[in-house]
C-alpha cells in the first residue's frame, strides 16, 4: 500500500471512526510492528501485545495525525517507538503534537515544506543505494534502539567510526543533517 492510501486510512479513522479503515491499517502494520518489537528484544507474545497497544494508540490519536507533518508510516513508527519506551522502560516520551510550542519564530526551511510522501518515496529509492556497512548500522539503530555508543560497543568499533557511518548514511539519504556535530 502506498503512503497516500495509508494516510487516507488514518484520516478515515480520524474523521469517521471508520473501523473498516482501521482493520486495513491493522492488517498492514500489525505484522510489521510485531516484527519491529521482536527485533527490539520482545518475545513473540509480548511483541504482539506491544503491536496491539500501538495500534490502539493509532485509533485514539488518529485525530492528531497531520499529513503535512508526517506520513502515516513515520507517524506510526514514532507511536510504536514511544509506546515501547513507555511500556518497557517506564519512561515517558512526549507525544509529537506536544512539541509544537514556539517554533513560529523560525523561518520554515524549504525542506520542511517539501511534501512528505514525495520525500518518502525518494527515501525508499535512496535506501537501496546506501552501502551495506552503513545500512547495517542504521537499521541496528532503528530496530534495536541502540545509541551510537551501544552500537560501537556491540560491534567492537570505535565510536567515531559508528558516528561517521551513520552520518554518511544520513547524508546519502539527502542532507538530513543541518547542524554540525559538537564533541
Amino acid at each position: 500500500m502506498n503512503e497516500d492510501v495509508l494516510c487516507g486510512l488514518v484520516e478515515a479513522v480520524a474523521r469517521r471512526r471508520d473501523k473498516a479503515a482501521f482493520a486495513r491499517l491493522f492488517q498492514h502494520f500489525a505484522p510489521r510492528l510485531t516484527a519491529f518489537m521482536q527485533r527490539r528484544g520482545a518475545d513473540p507474545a509480548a511483541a504482539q501485545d506491544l503491536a496491539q497497544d500501538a495500534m490502539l494508540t493509532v485509533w485514539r490519536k488518529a485525530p492528531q495525525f497531520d499529513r503535512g507533518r508526517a506520513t502515516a508510516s513515520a507517524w506510526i513508527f514514532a507511536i510504536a517507538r514511544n509506546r515501547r519506551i513507555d511500556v518497557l522502560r517506564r519512561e515517558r516520551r512526549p507525544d509529537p503534537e506536544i512539541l509544537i510550542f514556539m517554533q513560529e519564530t523560525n523561518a520554515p526551511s524549504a525542506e520542511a515544506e517539501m511534501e512528505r510522501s514525495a520525500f518518502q518515496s525518494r527515501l525508499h529509492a535512496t535506501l537501496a543505494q546506501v552501502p551495506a556497512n552503513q545500512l547495517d548500522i542504521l537499521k541496528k539503530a532503528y530496530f534495536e534502539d541502540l545509541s551510537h555508543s551501544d552500537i560501537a560497543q556491540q560491534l567492537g568499533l570505535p565510536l567515531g567510526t559508528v558516528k561517521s557511518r551513520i552520518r554518511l548514511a544520513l547524508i546519502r539519504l539527502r542532507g538530513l543533517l543541518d547542524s554540525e556535530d559538537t564533541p
Partner: protein
Amino acid sequence: MTHHHVPSSLLFDYATGALSEGPALAVSTHLSYCGDCLAALGRLEEIGGVVLQSLAPAAVDSELLSRTLARLDEQGANERKPEPEDAANGTLPPVLRAHLGIGLKDARWRFAAPHVREARLTLGGPSHRASLLRVPAGRNVPRHTHRGVEYTVVLSGGFIDRGQAYRKGDFCAADPSVEHRPVAMDDAECLCLIVLDAPVLPMGRIGRLIAPFLR
C-alpha cells in the same frame, strides 16, 4: 530563532528511541523552540517509517485483529485540545510542565550557589538529574567542569559562555573537556533547563565552598 542546536548524533539517538529520559527531555525542550530541528527530527522519523515498512511481516495470531476491534469502543479519541492557559507556566514548553508537577511559581527553589536557585524536576529513572536553574541578570554560575555530560536549554533570558551567546531555546552540551563559568545576560534573569548524568565538579574557592550543595 534559535542559534545553537542539538548535535545531529543526539537528535538521531532521540529519533530511534535510544536516548534515555533526561537527555531526551533536553532535546524535546529544544525542539519546542526550534522549527529546523523539529523538521530534521521529522525526516529521521520518515526513515523510521521506511525501515518499519521494509520489515518482513511477522506471524500474528489470527484472532488478534478481532480482539483489537472488540476493544476500539472503549478507547475514545484524543481530540486536538489546546494546552490549558496557565499564566505562571506560560514560559515553559508543555514537555517540561509535566515534569514540574506543581507550577513554576510554587516550585521549591533551593540554594544551588550564591544568587543561583534550583528547582528539581521529576524523572522516571535515577540515571539523570533534571532541574530548572534561575540566575539573576548579570550574575554567574560558579566556574565548574563536568564528570559527565551537562545539557542546558535556555527557557527565558540568556547567558554568555565561552564567548557564545545563548538565548531562548538554544541548546548547549558540555562534557569533562569543558571548564566554564556561564554568565546571565545583563538585561534579564536567565531561566534554564539543566540535565546532568553526573554531578558537576566545582572549581576555585567559591566552587569548593558550595560543592556540598551541588550533589
